[in-house]
């Protein structure tokens, strides 16, 4: 039951093959991929998992099997699948997870006796702009202010999280920190000129409340 055309997701990048090999060399390994974000990012879909299994086998690593979870972060689904996987899994010393950091931890909670290895680095919550290009959209900061900036988040999209205007270092609308990144404050400027509203270059934004971004536990009210 793969969701189609999901464009917003957890963006990840695959760790280098040399790194992965160094972590699994000398062990037998079972590989999990993920049908959602990691498939979209091409870091843990069927194609990538098969390719990695071949590469590892070529280096003499025993791969006892692989499976694309639907998705890796779905604890219930994974639990349901367990009986069908146990035979292959029990032959493996370790589990290599090609998913986001959340997926890795859901898998590890169900397989406490296996060594768990992450195959991906989890980057951010964002969108796929075009092939091989992803943009951060949300820092999960717990205190959303995006509606004050024409739905362009300066916390996620400015490397300095500036809430009171641009830093003075952008050139021709491009951020001084990343050479392909449009300055979000230039984008806010364009929206302000087109759509009007309160001038975000004059209106003072007080210090942000980061207390929610530091939360580890959250219990929703019933």
């Amino acid at each position, binding site marked *: 039951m793969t969701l189609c055309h999901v464009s917003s997701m957890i963006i990840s990048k695959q760790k280098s093959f040399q790194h992965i090999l160094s972590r699994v060399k000398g062990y037998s390994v079972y590989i999990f991929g993920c049908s959602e974000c990691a498939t979209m990012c091409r870091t843990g879909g069927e194609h990538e998992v098969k390719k990695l299994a071949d590469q590892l086998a070529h280096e003499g690593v025993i791969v006892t099997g692989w499976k694309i979870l639907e998705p890796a972060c779905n604890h219930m689904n994974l639990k349901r699948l367990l009986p069908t996987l146990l035979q292959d899994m029990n032959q493996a010393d370790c589990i290599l997870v090609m998913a986001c950091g959340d997926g890795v931890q859901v898998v590890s909670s169900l397989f406490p006796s296996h060594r768990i290895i992450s195959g991906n680095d989890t980057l951010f919550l964002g969108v796929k702009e075009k092939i091989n290009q992803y943009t951060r959209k949300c820092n999960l900061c717990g205190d959303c202010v995006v509606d004050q900036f024409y739905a362009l988040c300066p916390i996620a999209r400015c490397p300095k999280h500036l809430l009171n205007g641009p830093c003075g270092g*952008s050139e021709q609308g491009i951020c001084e920190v990343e050479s392909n990144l449009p300055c979000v404050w230039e984008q806010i400027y364009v929206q302000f000129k087109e759509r009007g509203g309160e001038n975000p270059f004059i*209106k003072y934004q007080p210090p942000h409340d980061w207390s929610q971004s530091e939360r580890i536990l959250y219990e929703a009210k019933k």
Partner: protein
Amino acid sequence: MKPVSQLQQTFDSKHFAVTAEIGPPKGADPMSIVQKASMLHGYADAYNITDNQTAVVRLSSLAGAIHVKNQQMEPIVQMGCRDRNRIALQSDILGASSLGVHNMLFVTGDHQSKGNHPMAKGVFDIDSVQLIAIARQLRDDGVFQSKDEIKRGKPSIFIGAVENPFATPLDIRVDRLEKKIKAGAQFIQTQSVFNIDRFTEWMQEITERGLDKQVHILAGITPIKSHRMLNRMRFHVPGVDIPDEIAQQLESSQDIQAKAIDISIDLIQEIKQIKGVHGIHISAIFWEKIIPDLIKQTRIGPKYR
């Protein structure tokens, strides 16, 4: 209100102020600061000590400020938001004031990716405008950012900020300046001026909006020491605007340093005539020894009042 520093007194007396930058060393030996300070003694009203500028680790601004103060010179301590959160910044404001360092310049800071520790975590808990507002709140209301009360002594601060008249979009630069003034900025040091036309236009908008009555603007002057530095400033330092004409004058000159001094002198003379400018801020990057020449030839600063 009684001035808290000589620099503030200078502005209150309607003098044309001069500030100069002293870059602290990449090490614990304070001799280079002491030497630069003694070379510049008496030429400026106050001296900025940069805070890990361009994200390269150097001796701390507050420690540098104390070395300058020990030479009977007035420092301007700089505080950036990249390396410290609101707890550490407020603590440093209290600490600086307790040591008799009252000129404080608040900046956001260059991004860590440009410096010598690109793997560092940038803090950016607050931005420069918020830091200015917090400093004013500490001083005037006696409360921390959290509204918790200060016990045993509100800090005395003459609040400084920076602004770049040359950054795009151009038509919001004065809005952003106004925001800093409303937050509490009392003096402004600008990005180095080379494009005098744009600077004049920016100042004109400031005076039209009456903002020159609310803040003291010091125009940035940077003499360009070498071809390498010219190239760096033109193409690699974000937010610097060097018009082709000035670049060509420097490039075609037999003696780039002599030409750079001439250009700086001309710029200072022109800037002095612009309504609303209350001083000059000289940042002669790795070329501090040229500052006395510039001062002598333009007859500005405390020696010439």
